[in-house]
């Protein structure tokens, strides 16, 4: 069992990214992990964008992140990269906030043309924050996601690929907790 924190960077109140993360969280809970979701949108935006790391809600996220084993970093793709909102939270974390952690990057976007944003935009930032292992990420096309009151429905092939990436992340976390218990 590992502790996981999921950061989602969509500014939208009806966010696909968030709905997809809830779906992913259910999968991870089923595999014995504890997971908490942090929509960056719920943090005070003025403090985020003016760089106030002492704001209590933001400081609480930094504390939760420090004690987590795995981090999910999810964002819609804006201008071929992660959202500015997500980045404004990352900017307020300690320089090596991801030191020793396993990180899963996830993106949602409207065009397959932006799949590489995971590897050229998300990954360098996560690595620079000291992440020990940034596992395979996944880019989910908006058109394959349907939202309803009951949650989210993802087109079958895309869902299978997403969940296989999530399972890979889960497996790395399980291996680490087993290793930690054995040592």
């Amino acid at each position, binding site marked *: 069992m590992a502790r996981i924190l999921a950061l989602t960077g969509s500014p939208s109140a009806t966010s696909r990214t968030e709905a997809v993360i809830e779906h992913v969280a259910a999968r991870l809970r089923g595999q014995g992990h504890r997971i908490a979701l942090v929509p960056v949108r719920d943090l005070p935006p003025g403090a985020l*964008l*003016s760089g106030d790391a002492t704001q209590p809600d933001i400081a609480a996220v930094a504390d939760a992140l420090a004690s987590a084993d795995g981090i999910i970093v999810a964002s819609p793709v804006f201008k*071929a990269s992660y959202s500015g*909102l997500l*980045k404004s939270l990352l900017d307020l974390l300690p320089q090596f906030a991801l030191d020793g952690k396993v990180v899963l990057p996830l993106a949602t976007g409207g065009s397959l043309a932006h799949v590489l944003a995971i590897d050229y935009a998300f990954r360098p930032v996560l690595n620079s924050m000291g992440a020990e292992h940034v596992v395979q990420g996944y880019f989910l096309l908006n058109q394959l996601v349907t939202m309803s009151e009951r949650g989210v429905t993802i087109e079958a092939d895309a869902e299978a690929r997403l969940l296989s990436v999530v399972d890979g992340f889960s497996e790395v976390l399980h291996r680490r907790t087993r290793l930690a218990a054995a040592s």
Partner: protein
Amino acid sequence: MTPLTLAVVTAGLTQPSSTRLLADRLTEAVSRQLADEGRQVDVRVIELRELAVDIANNFVTGFPSPALDAELEAVTGADAVIAVTPIFTASYSGLFKSFFDVLDNAALTGKPVLVAATGGTARHSLALEHALRPMFAYLRAVVVPTAVYASSEDWGSTDAEGLSGRIARAAGELTELLSGRPSTGRAVDEVLPFEQQLAALLPKS
């Protein structure tokens, strides 16, 4: 000739800020080089720090406040843009990215842009090439070949290969892209009265 318009977007979080200082040095270099070619330039500095709350509110409401809208319009209507950000976690700052997130996708199409950044060490210089340049490429801007990175130790250097040299070279590249371009200044737009437009369409008798 109508003066060219230059929008300078700067994302420093402190006051005074080295990001603003770099923006000012670049602006001065561009203005001087344009003046050498006999061109006047109107500069508009956009301090994103002062717009942080407006940008945040735009996320919630979906539309910009009048103050933010005026700055977005200034960038959209400018002949050229200088964009300067501090580098955090090997990339542009969240505030910098948030401003461009709310800017229209077509606002920078074909527009000459000079990109620059400040950082504590030279280790993150390449953020300009792997983070800023791709974002402006997505926005179809014409980014000058020399991107200017200033780390803490650069500020004292006066050598021609150092920061001053890079500023002069980048400013020269932006000036070259602007030379010969007429200003897009709205003052020159002339509205042809409807009667005249109609008359032009009528067959000559």
